[in-house]
């Protein structure tokens, strides 16, 4: 009987304190655990969504994979934690996740008052409107008096109010907790307009019963730089997440792809490529990672252009043009500091 009691006590203790005593350094904690915990959305096509088998895919998911590849050398060692807009910051603050890659807009308030740090931008977005073609609306300025479906807990809610006020229009906001509920209500005809970040609009459109009958209006009413977020006060980890993203952008600029990375590693004479792949220069030392950290990212995940095309680009159901997200050298604003 005593044994049983002890076994019970042990089980309860493990249950109650299923703790990772997170150490000061997230990087060491991740490496010790062997798993990188990445906060993603509960399901947004093109960004982070799980299929029937529970396999995650999307541009945000690929950023998670890149971080795992750099830190652990294996892009599959990830625990994806689906979060809704409300709980995402708490999850990061409390250490439930190591990084948040969930289409989170970089703003002054969030960067300065939530104890968080934004590490960069993996998608330049802006808030837009989606309407039914039948409505016959060509511009957002014709939306006076419209009913607008929107997800709660987002910057979109505030932008929406600002935009309609500025243009002296009225609206009715119908607010839901999740993307799914918002899209379902729009599909049912509860609202005239669905507003969200433009990229999400394209994703949500694929969830409508008649996607071809909805159009995204040209107006972009806000700047929404979306990027990975980490806890404040852990600079080593901040650097790793920041440079995992930068390495992918740099790789695209240098023409290093998933397919040719081995060949480049063997044959390339370009100093920039050799530095990126860890053959020359400071390599991974400053980050506290292996020298081939960037090679692993490109080999296992791909460069930025590849993940963009694969998940949201013209080759995907979302069919979004590169636009602002093209490299700076090709008319966009994607720009990585040099890897040297």
């Amino acid at each position, binding site marked *: 009987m005593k044994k049983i009691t002890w076994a019970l006590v042990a089980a309860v203790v493990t249950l109650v304190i299923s703790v990772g005593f997170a150490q000061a350094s997230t990087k060491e904690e991740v490496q010790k655990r062997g798993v990188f915990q990445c906060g993603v959305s509960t399901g947004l096509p093109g960004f982070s969504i799980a299929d029937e088998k529970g396999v995650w895919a999307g541009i945000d998911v690929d950023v998670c994979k890149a971080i795992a590849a750099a830190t652990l050398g294996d892009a599959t060692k990830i625990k994806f934690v689906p979060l809704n807009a409300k709980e995402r*910051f708490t999850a990061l603050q409390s250490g439930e996740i190591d990084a948040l890659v969930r289409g989170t807009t970089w703003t002054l308030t969030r960067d300065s*008052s*939530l104890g968080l740090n934004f590490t960069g931008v993996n998608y330049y977005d802006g808030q837009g409107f989606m309407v039914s073609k039948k409505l016959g609306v060509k511009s957002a300025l014709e939306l006076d*008096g419209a009913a607008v479906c929107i997800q709660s807990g987002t910057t979109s809610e505030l932008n929406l109010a600002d935009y309609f006020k500025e243009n002296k229009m009225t609206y009715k906001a119908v*607010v839901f907790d999740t993307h799914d509920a918002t899209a379902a209500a729009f599909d049912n005809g509860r609202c005239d307009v669905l507003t969200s970040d433009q990229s999400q609009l394209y994703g949500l459109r694929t969830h409508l019963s008649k996607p071809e009958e909805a159009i995204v209006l040209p107006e972009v009413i806000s700047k929404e730089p979306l990027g990975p977020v980490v806890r404040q006060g852990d600079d080593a980890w901040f650097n790793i997440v920041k440079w995992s993203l930068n390495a992918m952008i740099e790789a695209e600029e240098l023409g290093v792809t998933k397919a040719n990375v081995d060949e480049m590693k063997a044959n390339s004479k370009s100093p920039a490529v050799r530095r990126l792949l860890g053959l020359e220069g400071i390599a991974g030392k400053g980050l506290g990672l292996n020298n081939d950290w960037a090679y692993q990212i490109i080999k296992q995940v791909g460069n930025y252009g590849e993940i963009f095309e694969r998940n949201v680009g013209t080759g995907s159901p979302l069919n979004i043009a590169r636009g602002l997200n093209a490299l700076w050298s090709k008319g966009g604003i994607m720009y990585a500091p040099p890897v040297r």
Partner: protein
Amino acid sequence: MSNSSQKQSWWNNARYRSLFFQVLLVGMLVGFFWFIGSNTLANLDKRGISTGFGFLSLKAGFGILQSLIPFSEADSFGRTFLVGLLNTLLVSVLGIFFATIIGFTIGVARLSNNWLISKLAGVYVEMFRNIPLLLQIFFWYFAVLRALPSPKQSWKAADLAFLNIRGMYLPRPVFGDSFSFVAWTFVLAIVATLFIRRWARKRQDDTGQQFNLWGTGIGLIVALPLLVYFVVGSPLSWDIPKLQGFNFRGGVTVIPELTALLVALSVYTATFIAEAVRSGILAVNSGQTEAASALGLHKNKVLKLVVIPQAMRVIIPQLTSQYLNLVKNSSLATAIGYPDLVAVFAGTTLNQTGQAIEIIAMTMGVYLFISLTISGVMNWYNKKIMLVER
């Protein structure tokens, strides 16, 4: 300890033991709260989250679908609390009203001597109380209401009221200045009727003469204000909803979120009320009914004077707890976007300010206050009717 009269050692003394135990309990409690408090302060400090209730006066900057008091984006977070609270109260009051009506009807129907009706009522009760409320809310909102037409194909009643997927649009009364006369007359008429009723009862007790209270009451309460209404020049007009642009404007809008929530809440709670009513009526001894009939009381009077007053003693406590459940369940509004206290204040406001502790505490405080008040009133009422019994 062979001698039982020997003095007990102090640790076996019940008084000391209970004292020791209680001191221990207090110590644990204080320790627990100190632990939580110090952790919270440390965490808030570390994460740079602001504290205090200063946020209540900041500008909210977002819109709310339905508000009973004027609200715009320029108003404060504090006002979002009020708007949410009022919306919660609105859906609760309406829900209680409909649930009571449906519940009493079904409860009585279950006891009907008509086999079919009592079985149908039984099916209703078993069906709706065994399905989670949240599921019912989703069902009404996402599956049933989607069948409603778009604004341009609205169902209409004489071009005055309209029904479509965006809601129900009804004419809104616009009161003129002199309408207050009518309102005051109405209030006075009710007070007067109450006095007349007291007088009539006393007279009946004294002399046995009955007084036609119904006629007098209706005359006072309906006809008199009507008369005043026409005398002061019909100070009432109607604001009729009109289709402008995409949606109807003007009039009163009943948003579909409210409808779905209301239907689900009343249908669900009504099943429990029906059971309370049934058990209450069954609890009245059949001898009571028989005795009353033997006295020659008419069937209606038996119900009114003998059965219902006794059944109410059983029904009312259960009824109150169901009302409380309904108020608490109205918080499920957040799942379908009805702007109640939880959706607006513990939802959007919480997200925009990040001050979880203050906001959740305020929200819980409101529900706690409502619960404790109602159960306090209930206990008082219970005691009162208990005294009548003895």
